[in-house]
């Protein structure tokens, strides 16, 4: 029976592994460590990383340091591949060094979890990809990697007064129409990749709009985009409109 996780969510409930992860763990508990390692390393029938983390922690707790090291190395290889995709050589200055540093920080987190058992890896047993994306984002914010610009910056400043009719049109017909378009996996995938390529300030505005935040509100209790990003409403609209224009161009090229 897999050991329950110890960390709690904001509302005080314990973290729970998804049923499919619990099922994987139960299944893998029925085989010996040699067979488990074989399955962890196999590229077919990919064992979820959440289960890998569970058995790595268990190996440490049981003093099986040889097994721990083998799982650790398989895990790091997976993480390395994921980082190559998220922080590619063409997307960031010194990408290789940054990937190394993030892997190193994760290795240190594992060490802390081993030493003090403060449930530091619990989130990674719930949804690894989500947790690692959060970990990566935090590390990147601290390291301060410079993104290689792939999208030309708009000519207007944030506070520009004039917004062209063309941009207004783009803003009007993009996303503000039928939100169900986001349910189309193909469109969503293209859109998300396009959003990811936007400059940071525009990405934040678009990201918050898609998540349903309103641009501004006179009601101070409402958490608007202007309030969250600590800028005025006109700045938010300008960033949105520039982003819409860029997204429209990218998506039209993709569709063409």
């Amino acid at each position, binding site marked *: 029976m897999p050991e329950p996780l110890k960390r709690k969510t904001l509302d005080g409930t314990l973290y729970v592994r998804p049923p499919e992860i619990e099922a994987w763990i139960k299944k893998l508990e029925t085989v010996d460590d040699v067979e488990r390692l074989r399955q962890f390393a196999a590229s077919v029938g990919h064992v979820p990383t959440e289960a890998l983390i569970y058995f790595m922690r268990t190996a440490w707790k049981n003093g099986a340091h040889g097994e721990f090291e083998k799982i650790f190395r398989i895990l790091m290889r997976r993480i390395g591949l994921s980082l190559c995709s998220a922080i590619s050589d063409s997307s960031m200055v010194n990408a290789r060094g940054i990937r190394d540093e993030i892997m190193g920080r*994760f290795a240190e987190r594992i060490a802390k979890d081993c030493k003090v058992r403060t449930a530091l890896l619990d989130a990674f047993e719930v949804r690894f990809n989500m947790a690692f994306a959060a970990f990566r984002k935090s590390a990147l914010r601290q390291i301060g990697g410079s993104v290689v610009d792939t999208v030309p910056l708009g000519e207007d400043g944030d506070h520009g007064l004039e917004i062209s009719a063309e941009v207004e049109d783009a803003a009007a017909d993009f996303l503000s129409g039928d939100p169900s378009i986001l349910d189309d996996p193909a469109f969503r995938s293209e859109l998300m990749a396009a959003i990811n390529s936007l400059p940071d300030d525009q990405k934040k505005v678009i990201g918050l709009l898609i998540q349903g935040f309103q641009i501004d509100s006179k009601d101070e209790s409402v958490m608007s985009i202007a309030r969250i990003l600590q800028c005025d409403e006109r700045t938010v609209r300008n960033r949105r409109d520039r982003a819409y224009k860029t997204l429209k161009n990218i998506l039209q090229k993709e569709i063409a």
Partner: protein
Amino acid sequence: MTPHQHSKLDEEEVLLAYSAEHTHDHTTLEHYLREYPDHAQALVACSIELMVGETHSGEIAEVSDEVVERAWQRFQSAVSLPQGESVANPFATLNPAAFKSLAKKLDINNLLLIRIRDRTIDATTIPLRFVQKLATALDATSEVMMSYLSNPPAMVSEQRFRSSVKPAVTEQITFSKAVETSQLTQAQQDALKALQD
């Protein structure tokens, strides 16, 4: 967990807690933004990262044995540090924002500050005036600072576990070399060189 305890969580822990929530909708993000206003920008960036998901660069990815080995060494170093190590570490209490702000205050970038913190620079080559500036900024004495910087680098601490590949000892670099290779502006490099004893 009380709101007071919440406020003590550093950015990394807040983002991880957010990532482990069942749903990542408007309500969840707003809840976290209200609970952790100090980490609002990080939370927004993280929410978008989770929404966008992994985008593939199309580049061929390969993870070398050396990369995995370096991570293993980093693990070994961290796991073999004595529990009391953090007490003597003047950087230990810095959250990411404070770390960044320290780099700014010293007019250097995060990369150089990380190298200093991780002791990948030979302490004897660090100008004393720089050590003093660093100590003042960290509210520590120059002696404590120098003593911390003179410890072995994180990667060459006692090896408690045997590795299948012989671990390589990380060579420390000189302060000058670190200044030249940390992507600092020319003006920053000149200012640091001017501090040389």
